[in-house]
């Protein structure tokens, strides 16, 4: 299978996975293994001084690229602050920008996201912004120096699939950066659908973490992402959309 190039790195797997919402952390290494993913997301939080917590990094294989997110940020300034903290912690220079000031639907703020992207890209971060699929906003992310654009398929955690399909299709057609569908993908078939459309990768968390058997679900996602990519490269036969009309339009060429 062809590799995915982001921020100068060539990736074998087109599945990115998140580490939130797992019933217990000890399952994470096996999930990562069966997903074959090499880019793993995590979040930053204030240390809780009252309880000893395990460190998520202990569960992530060393050959994975860490993609900390800026969840919790409500504006560009906070996202930039979190990104710098992540770097200081030794997470490398990849960052998923996530700026959310809407607590009801958890929709990202595209404008603040672009501002944070610009600052961090200038500082040398490989910036992967999470966004609401909007063409003009995506263009501003390109100009801001993003390394990929990550539109949502449906609001975070809803598992509702590619509700924003038409808008994502436009981004795939028009944006010259990898489009990675993030959020909303609830089933492997939906991941395959995104890949068949030409998305370069998908990011899945909730659907795996909350599955009855997360390890098997991770494997199912891995296979579906590969299948979708393969179908995209094989150029699926288009469905005939119209019948050939009876009155010819080019008959005059034979006169």
């Amino acid at each position: 299978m062809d590799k995915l190039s982001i921020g100068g790195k060539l990736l074998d797997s087109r599945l990115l996975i998140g580490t939130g919402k797992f019933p217990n952390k000890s399952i994470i290494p096996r999930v990562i293994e069966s997903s074959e993913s090499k880019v793993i997301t995590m979040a930053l939080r204030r240390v809780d001084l009252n309880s000893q917590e395990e460190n998520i990094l202990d569960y992530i294989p060393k050959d994975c690229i860490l993609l900390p997110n800026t969840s919790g940020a409500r504006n560009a300034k906070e996202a930039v602050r979190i990104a710098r903290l992540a770097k200081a912690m030794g997470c490398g220079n990849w960052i998923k920008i996530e700026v959310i000031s809407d607590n009801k639907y958890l929709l990202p703020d595209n404008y603040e996201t672009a501002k944070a992207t610009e600052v961090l890209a200038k500082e040398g971060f490989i910036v992967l912004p999470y966004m609401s699929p909007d063409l003009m906003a995506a263009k501003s992310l390109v100009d801001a120096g993003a390394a990929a654009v990550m539109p949502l398929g449906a609001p975070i955690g809803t598992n509702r699939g590619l509700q924003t399909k038409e808008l994502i299709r436009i981004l795939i057609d028009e944006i010259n950066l990898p489009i990675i569908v993030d959020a909303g993908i609830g089933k492997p078939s939906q991941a395959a659908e995104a890949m068949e459309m030409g998305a370069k990768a998908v990011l899945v968390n909730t659907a795996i973490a909350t599955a009855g058997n997360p390890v098997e679900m991770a494997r199912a996602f891995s296979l579906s992402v590969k299948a979708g990519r393969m179908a995209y490269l094989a150029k699926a036969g288009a469905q005939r959309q119209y019948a050939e009309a009876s009155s010819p339009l080019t008959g005059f060429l034979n006169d």
Partner: protein
Amino acid sequence: MIVNGKEMDFGKITILKLLENLNLGVNKVAVEVNLEIVPNENYSEYVLSPGDKIEIIRLVGGG
């Protein structure tokens, strides 16, 4: 000083010692003093003063 929103009294103390006192691994957290990130390699020299606001951040699961 205020550590993660909680008032604490350690007198004059380096970041390294503070982390030890709190049972936190040096390589697993990031530390901000008064909103400025302190690089890991400075933890043993950086002396905190009373009144400083300290944030200790770590990684957790997330998507």
